[in-house]
């Protein structure tokens, strides 16, 4: 409307903080991984255990004093003094025991984990495969404490435009009569002035340009189709400094008109009289545009009526195949051939349009046009009336061909989604698009295949929606195939969210469906969907990925938010936890980094608790011998250095560098992801098994040492070792086992793993040596005896070897048992498995993105 206006006055309203996006955005929450939350629960349990141990030991200490008054007389408790009274002594014992067991909750875990995650984040950003060479951008990690969450993802919510697709349409294939041209592997060299075409067919170009005698019929058809494409659209031409460019409301039309230009029918523009000017073979040809029957989502077609230079009047109609086929003349040819072309393209995910035409006699046209003008001038229900009138003329069509346009996908989207699906992750596409478009894309990115069974919920009344949900649920329960897909419209979703009964039914339904496509959803609904899944499946980890400002809510609503740093600005990347530049980077992020981070961080958390359980257990057990008096076994200094110097570096190295599988293996075998996704690395049983190992090994060390060393000489000096030597002997074994356990756990040994493990042990011996040279220390002069004594050495060998081999046996036994139960399970499943319904669904891929009313200067009579 403003096209030829010199200047206008404008007011900018709803800007900045008042813009729709800003008003809709929610505050960012700090995110915490499920593993971390689970760890906090364990800490509470351990704290309760710590309190109980302290209480039991304090009471045991009190009872001992009461039961053995003679023996306790040595300690000269003076009952008259307040500080020596029974209750005070008990309280003191209790606090001493609390201090003794305080290491059960390792503070060092927090620091260790932070360091580990920080380095893991650095490794994510260093990943060469995730480096964008065009934009020069490395992936960035905003919230590194979600690293371990990446390997547990079981729901992915993805935006469509900009994330899965590039928002570029390319003309790919077409059918002319019964013959079809173009390949899906085309890689056309860019042509000057022609965009959005990626069409390769030497055969067609030859027929078009240099036809043989026998091909003349085909040639005429090809030229006609090309002309059709250049005429039947609502594109405007803009001229800026002598350069003509198309102004299209629909990217599909842009692709079609460009294709026509490529086939040498260049759309030049419209003159004042409403004639369409086509440049063909360097000559301008005039076609009088009589009417435009607009596209809308119920009509699913558009037509133009033109008067050809030879005065014939032609109606050219393009639209959804089912709509066009209904309106074909019985004598129309090529129906079957075009149908099969449409199906092939549809399964490939191309957006198809069927093309048809008919000739109208002057008389018929005049009569119809009067009705049309009347309808167009109607005050009430104009649109409906126009539709009715259009219906009168858009019939008895003759099919002439079909086109297929590719909504260009981002790099490797199909492979990535396929892999994600194989890994058992449920994939949701949340898009503002129409159902057809969304389904189309779902096909092209392998989210849907011709084996998928689609369930559509698009009711507009609550009863309809409820009915559809229930029906769908019942059918899925019966079908037993895992190739179901649900297509959900935004309106239906709004209704479902309002009624709790429908919400519940929907929630039960979506649990069973691996692929869900939600169409026509607003940005707030995107976040609501994520929240719906989060609230109803507490154990499931959700991940959102999007590129635009409208994805920000969704990104911050999910456990893990991934932002695509691309053309659509930085908001999504800024709100995200991980920012990448391509959808395909998700594969590396989840299956290589995420999977391994989950495994290693789980190991790190468990290990930090384990090593302290190993340390504290002998101290607690010594209560049995010291009348529960809270006498410590260990040297104060070495004990304080345990978590900071003697057991820290090897676990950090492990958590950063250990690889259970090589990257190629992880990125080709989706099954490796399942273990992490199902939480096998970190759960109550896993955690408490580690604690039990710690306690058991501490017990073994304690008793073996105590019964070997106490009141028995272990050298030809005949001297019995004292409490502190024994304590430090236990401590040395604890340090050795805590470190060597990591050595035994490494799947891959690098120079660093050995260097830091043996280095840490060496550091321990160094500190031990230094401390043992001071006469004020209780372990004075004991250093050499740890090494140069056959009894002490053999005892160390016995305990280290037995404990490490015990773990080998237990782990392998566990694997055997798990494998055994799995094989039983699989056998049972095989018996139950019904024959899957392999009925292929035929799909055609109509999709067309245009809303009516974009170009009134063409469609409205008043502008002519």
């Amino acid at each position, binding site marked *: 409307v403003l096209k030829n206006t010199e200047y206008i006055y404008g007011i900018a309203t709803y800007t900045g903080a008042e813009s729709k996006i800003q008003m809709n955005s929610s505050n960012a929450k700090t995110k915490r991984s499920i593993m971390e939350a689970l760890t906090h629960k364990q800490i509470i349990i351990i704290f309760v255990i710590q309190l109980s141990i302290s209480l039991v030991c304090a009471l045991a200490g009190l009872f001992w004093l009461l039961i053995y008054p*003679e023996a306790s*007389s*040595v*300690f*000269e408790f*003076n009952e008259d003094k307040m500080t*020596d009274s029974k209750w005070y002594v008990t309280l003191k014992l209790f606090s*001493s025991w609390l201090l003794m067991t305080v290491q059960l909750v390792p503070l060092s875990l927090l620091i260790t984990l932070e360091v580990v995650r920080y380095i893991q984040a650095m*490794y994510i950003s*260093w*990943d*060469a495969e995730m*480096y*964008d*060479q*065009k934009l*020069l951008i490395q992936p960035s990690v905003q919230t590194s404490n979600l690293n371990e969450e990446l390997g547990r993802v079981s729901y992915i919510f993805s935006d469509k435009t900009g994330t899965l697709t590039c928002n570029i349409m390319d003309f790919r294939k077409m059918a002319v009569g019964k013959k079809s041209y173009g390949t899906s592997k085309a890689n056309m060299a860019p042509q000057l002035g022609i965009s959005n075409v990626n069409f390769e067919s030497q055969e067609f170009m030859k027929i078009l340009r240099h036809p043989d005698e026998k091909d003349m019929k085909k040639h005429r058809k090809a030229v006609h189709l090309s002309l059709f494409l250049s005429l039947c659209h609502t594109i405007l031409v803009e001229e800026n400094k002598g350069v003509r460019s198309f102004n299209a409301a629909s990217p599909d039309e842009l692709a079609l008109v460009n294709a026509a230009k490529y086939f040498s029918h260049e759309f030049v523009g419209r003159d004042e009289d409403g004639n369409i000017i086509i440049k063909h073979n360097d000559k301008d040809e005039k076609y009088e545009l009589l009417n435009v029957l607009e596209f809308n989502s119920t009509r699913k077609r558009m037509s133009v009526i033109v008067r050809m230079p030879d005065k014939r009047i032609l109606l050219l109609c393009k639209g959804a195949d089912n709509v066009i086929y209904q309106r074909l003349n019985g004598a129309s040819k090529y129906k079957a051939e075009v149908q099969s072309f449409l199906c092939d393209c549809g399964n490939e995910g191309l957006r198809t349009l069927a093309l048809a035409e008919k000739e109208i006699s002057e008389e018929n046209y005049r009569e119809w046009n009067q009705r049309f003008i009347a309808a167009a001038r109607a005050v009430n229900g104009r649109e409906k009336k126009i539709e009715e009138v259009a219906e009168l003329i858009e019939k008895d069509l003759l099919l002439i061909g079909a086109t297929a346009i590719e909504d260009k996908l981002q790099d490797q989207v199909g492979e990535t989604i396929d892999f994600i699906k194989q890994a058992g992750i449920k994939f949701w596409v949340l898009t503002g698009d129409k159902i057809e478009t969304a389904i189309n894309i779902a096909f092209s990115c392998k989210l849907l295949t011709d084996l998928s069974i689609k369930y559509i919920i698009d009711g507009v009344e609550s009863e309809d929606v409820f009915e559809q949900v229930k029906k769908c649920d019942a059918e899925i329960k019966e079908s037993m195939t895992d190739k179901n897909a649900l297509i959900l419209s935004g309106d239906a979703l709004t209704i479902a969210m309002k009624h709790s009964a429908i919400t519940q039914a929907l929630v039960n339904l979506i649990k069973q469906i691996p692929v869900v496509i939600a169409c026509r959803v607003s940005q707030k609904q995107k976040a609501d969907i994520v929240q719906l899944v989060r609230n109803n499946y507490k154990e499931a980890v959700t991940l959102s990925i999007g590129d635009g400002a409208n994805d920000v809510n969704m990104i911050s609503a999910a456990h893990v938010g991934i932002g695509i740093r691309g053309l659509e600005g930085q908001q999504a990347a800024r709100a995200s936890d991980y920012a990448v530049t391509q959808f395909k980077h998700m594969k590396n992020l989840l299956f290589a980094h995420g999977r391994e981070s989950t495994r290693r961080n789980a190991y790190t958390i468990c290990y930090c608790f384990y090593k302290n359980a190993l340390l504290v257990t002998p101290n607690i057990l010594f209560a049995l*011998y*010291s009348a529960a*008096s809270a*006498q410590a076994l260990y040297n104060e200094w070495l004990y304080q250095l345990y978590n900071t110097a003697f057991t820290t570096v090897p676990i950090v190295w492990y958590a*950063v*560098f250990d*690889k259970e599988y090589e990257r190629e293996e992880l990125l080709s075998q989706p099954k490796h992801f399942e273990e992490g996704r199902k939480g096998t690395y970190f759960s109550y049983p896993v955690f408490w098994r580690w604690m039990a190992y710690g306690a058991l090994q501490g017990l073994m060390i304690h008793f*073996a040492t*105590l*019964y*070997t060393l*106490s*009141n*028995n*000489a272990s*050298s*030809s*000096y*005949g*001297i*019995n*070792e004292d*409490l*502190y030597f*024994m*304590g430090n002997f236990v401590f040395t074994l604890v340090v050795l086992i805590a470190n060597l356990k990591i050595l035994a756990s490494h*799947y*891959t*040994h690098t120079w660093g793993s050995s260097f830091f493990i043996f280095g840490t042990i060496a550091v321990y011996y160094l500190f031990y040596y230094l401390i043992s040279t001071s*006469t*004020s220390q209780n372990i*004075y*002069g004991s250093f050499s005896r740890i090494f140069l004594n*056959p*009894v002490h050495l*053999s*005892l160390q060998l*016995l305990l280290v*070897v*037995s404990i490490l*081999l015990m773990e*080998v046996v237990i782990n*392998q036994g566990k694997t055997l048992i798990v494998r055994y139960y799995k094989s039983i399970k699989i056998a049972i499943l095989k018996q139950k498995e019904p024959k899957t319904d392999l009925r292929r669904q035929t799909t055609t891929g109509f999709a067309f993105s245009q809303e009516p009313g974009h170009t009134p200067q063409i469609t409205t009579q008043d502008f002519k």
Partner: protein
Amino acid sequence: YQRRVHGIKNMNEGERIYTELKSSKVKQNAMKSWRPSNTPYQNFVLFLTFGILFLAIGFLYVISSATITTVITNYSGNSTEIRVPIQIKTRMNPPIYLYYSITGLHQNYRRFAVSKNAEQLSGKKLKTRSEAKSCYPVFTEAERMEYANAGNEIANPCGLAPKYMFNDEINLQNGIGQEVPIDRNNLIFPSEKGKYLESPNSWVNTSTGQFATWMKISPVAPIKKLYGKINIPLEGEYIFLIQNSYHKIVHAYGGQRSIILSTGTFLGGAQYFLGTTFIVAAALLLVFAVAYKYC
């Protein structure tokens, strides 16, 4: 590294950075590494090796322990000198270790074990109770002697641990009244020497091995500590002559005293526990070795 970056200078920026990242083994976590394989056969060899080794060590301990002869003599009473005749049936070859053992005293009780003053024991003279804080509840001579007139100066050494020191003197005579020499040197390891120095005006000689031995806290409740070594073979009738100074103390806490004569090996005393543990561990390892081989 510099050369490598230099060599790819001509490429465009994106490719250059990519190549730089890609070629860094550290940044791609592609450092040279090896994966330990864990085949049943390897496990078989591993378990078998340690099984056999542990079995050998276990039997070594058990067999060597079987050569040790031990004679335990209890004594009690309140007379100043106690004579206890003993009969050594099997000949004991030197070195023979002489231990004293006391039941009923928990040296490892926290309150007892910490009740001493390290500064005082390394030669510093303490004047006030607050200086000797760690000696609680035994600070002064009066508290040490349990005799009000003994004075209020800080006991040297103070604390529970020194106060209850075993101070019986044990001598051994053979059947014809000849003194059997008991070597009271080397009661502590050479590396431990120098912890307790001689202190003037102390109520006990703190530089002796006997004091140092007492101050080394016993890990378990019946205390057994080295008293001396006998370097001649023993067989037949002997008499222990004991200067009974510890009677009052041990009577107060209801303890029992005994003297233990024991021969030893190069591995020290009898290691039946350690030997048995080795054999049990070896048996388990061998069972698993067989399992790896045949399952």
